């Protein structure tokens, strides 16, 4: 099971995502950060994680984070989870191969199901049936 990282300067956003994972019966490891720099220093030494990344953050924003990942050749998968509906941001996201999905907040149960292709659904349904 992939390790999941939540990076959002708003703890409430991380709380919502985490709750949705819990509701789906996900039992894997979920680590949340409100400081992207701290998250990056840990992700540097990890492999094949799935990152939920916010764009608008002070000090280090989502783009800075993605650039830093590219610079260090880190191969994690990134789902952008942002309140931005701007076309400029959506287009810009295409420039980063690491980004596998662009999601507009609020995250809810319906949207969460769209992620099934990236999360192991069988694992999820198996966990649910337990």
């Amino acid at each position, binding site marked *: 099971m992939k390790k999941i990282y939540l990076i959002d300067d708003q703890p*409430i956003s991380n709380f*919502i995502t985490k709750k949705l994972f819990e509701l789906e019966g996900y039992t894997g490891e979920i680590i949340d950060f409100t400081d992207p720099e701290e998250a990056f220093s840990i992700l540097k030494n990890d492999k094949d994680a799935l990152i939920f990344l916010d764009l608008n953050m002070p000090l280090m924003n989502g783009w800075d984070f993605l650039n830093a990942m590219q610079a260090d050749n880190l191969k994690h998968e990134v789902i952008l989870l942002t*309140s*931005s509906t701007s076309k400029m941001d959506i287009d810009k996201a295409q420039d980063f191969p690491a980004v596998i999905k662009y999601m507009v*907040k609020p995250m809810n149960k319906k949207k969460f199901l769209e992620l099934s292709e990236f999360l192991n659904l069988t694992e999820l349904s198996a966990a649910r049936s337990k």
Partner: protein
Amino acid sequence: MHNLSQNTSQLYRITYEAYSKFANEVNRCSDLEEVAEVCKTHLKYLLNFHIIRMTIFQGDKLFTFELYGNKIWFDLKGETDLLPYEYELFKEGIPLITNEIPDKLVKEKVELNALYDPVLWGWCFDKKERKVLVSLLADQNKAFSVGDVDILKLMVDCIQAKFSEIYLKRQLAIQNQNLSDAYLTIKEKNEEIQRIVLNQKETIKARTSEIALKNEKLLHISALNAHNVREPLSRIQGIIDLFEFMDDETCRKELVPKLISSAREMDEVLKEVVEMASKELIELKAAEL
């Protein structure tokens, strides 16, 4: 030796030669002073006279010159008045021949007492565009007769033609000067207009880029504002979506406080947006003034 004055054909040849010389010299003249000098040298070979006086009319101006003895006097500026008999000539156009010699004509030029039977001749030649008054004072010693009128007319024609030429040249020079003055003025004005146009273009360019910059700034601010407002709103929506999956106790304890803090944050952001927008409006208005 036979009498020259009786040999008419020879007399004609001599007169013709004298006139040719005179006409040639007049032809070469480039101004009226030179014409006067030629008259002084050559007229005495064509005609007998004590005083010859010519007045050429040009528009409302007069050009007068007089020849007496070996002296010449002329007025190119038209400041001299006509003599009374000249007024008559001008008005009536009838040739004049009289023994009454006006003092004004001879004064300080010829001693009237020294003349033997003086006669004053006068003509008004009406040449197309201008009149020419000619008067001639002769006596028995320097005799003038009706037979001399033809040569006098030729002489007057020659001088008058030259006068026309010089006058036209002068007019042309004045016109040319006026034209080149006008050209210079137009050129200067054009340059001034060019400068103004260039200045305008630059002002417009500067203003346009200023406005574009302001627009960009405002758009950026509005986008940023929408963004900042949407952020806490999306959190509120996210929390609300969780309500249906949790029991009342958890909702009240976990979700409601988060709802309250997110709503408070959204309020803060909206206050900031309003403040920023008013500030921008005030700045824009100030910049317009």
